[in-house]
């Protein structure tokens, strides 16, 4: 399978945060959800793909081209949507179109105005008056107007109401009808990913915790609950994000470990949200043990 995006060993250190050896690939024709807590490194990774951040080491290839050397050609073929609007608020969509159009060889004005119509956006009102959902749709209309082969969205759904989020899923589903395209979609609202994403990459504290098909992820982990005394010997150490409370415990386990569980413990499929929560709890647990031994 051909990869539309490949990130290999990406490292970037800031004063209080670092991306460590981030490696994953998005095959052409599919949608990847890029998830993780705020501050896990999603935006830094996306900025590196866009050549807006200089990586310390590692390489990124988009359409088989080098993200640094071929940055300009890549940007002609890639559309990006950030979580906040970067447009001048006093302009109308029509004026914005005139400003952005000259930068793109493949810009198609008809497509742009057709998108505005489809998204019910007026082209004669200052975009500063738009609601959050309207701003997001305007940025998508701009991102789609030059017929990009890869669409990258950084937290497009944060702060959107359920109706606007659903509209976004419609737009993305339409876009990926063409199997020569790809979508990388960062979010912490995992319900959206749960439904339409083919692949998932989980970033935790600057490292890749999981990358692979969504089915692999959700079939690999389960949430287990019950009486702590019922846990078979040696299994507690293998649990992720173990948490005990007055009436029992909760933890995440790998589904391969489910076989050794007694029937008295309750097991449920883990949602991506739950997986993220248990990863965070595990990190907290580990932190506590370190400080305990100090």
């Amino acid at each position, binding site marked *: 399978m051909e990869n539309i995006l490949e990130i290999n060993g990406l490292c970037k250190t800031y004063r209080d945060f670092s991306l460590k050896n981030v490696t994953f690939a998005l095959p052409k*024709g*599919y949608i990847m959800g890029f998830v993780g807590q705020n501050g896990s490194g999603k935006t830094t990774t996306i900025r590196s793909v866009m050549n807006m951040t200089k990586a310390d080491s590692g390489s990124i290839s988009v359409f088989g081209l080098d993200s640094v050397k071929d940055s300009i050609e890549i940007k002609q073929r890639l559309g990006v949507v950030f979580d906040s609007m970067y447009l001048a608020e006093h302009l109308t969509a029509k004026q914005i179109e005139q400003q952005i159009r000259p930068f793109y060889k493949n810009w198609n004005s008809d497509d742009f105005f057709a998108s505005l119509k489809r998204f019910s956006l007026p082209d004669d009102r200052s975009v500063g008056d738009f609601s959050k959902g309207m701003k997001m749709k305007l940025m998508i209309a701009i991102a789609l107007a030059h017929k990009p082969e890869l669409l990258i969205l950084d937290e497009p759904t944060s702060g959107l109401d359920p109706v606007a989020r659903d509209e976004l899923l419609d737009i993305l*589903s339409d876009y*990926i009808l063409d*199997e020569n395209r790809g979508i990388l979609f960062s979010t912490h609202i995992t319900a959206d990913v749960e*439904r*339409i994403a083919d*692949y998932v990459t989980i970033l935790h504290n600057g490292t890749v915790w999981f990358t692979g098909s*969504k*089915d692999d992820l959700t079939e690999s982990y389960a949430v287990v609950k019950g009486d702590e005394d019922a846990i078979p010997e040696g299994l507690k150490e293998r649990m992720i994000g173990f948490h005990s409370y007055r009436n029992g415990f909760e933890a995440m386990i790998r589904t391969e470990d489910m076989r050794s569980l007694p029937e008295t413990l309750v097991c449920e499929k883990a949602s991506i949200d739950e997986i993220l929560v248990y990863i965070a709890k595990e990190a907290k647990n580990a932190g506590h043990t370190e400080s305990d031994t100090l």
Partner: protein
Amino acid sequence: MVIVIKNKSELPIYEQIKQQMKAQILDGSLREDEQLPSIRQLARDLKISVITTTRAYNDLLDEGFITSITGKGYYVAPRNNELLRERMLFEMEEGLQKAIENGRNAGLTDDEIAAALKKFMED
């Protein structure tokens, strides 16, 4: 073709698609040689991942319910005897379940229901 995805279901989405398509092929509402939506179109219509619809179609192909013609798409497979037999079994089980339900609702014990069934078979 009607596919309804339950998000809260314990069944994985690809399994829900498979079961519903099978049921529609077996009850004849999806006809032999009828063209099915493409994998990408179905994913788009249901707003689900392409990998999920691919998995459902691949399973249905393996089980002989649908066929694929390269470059053209997916079709409901021609009826074969095994499929017909499966359909019969499916309908029998459905009918039996219904009969048992009605019997129990009417206050019969399971033995009485079984006896009634036996009597019908002898007649």
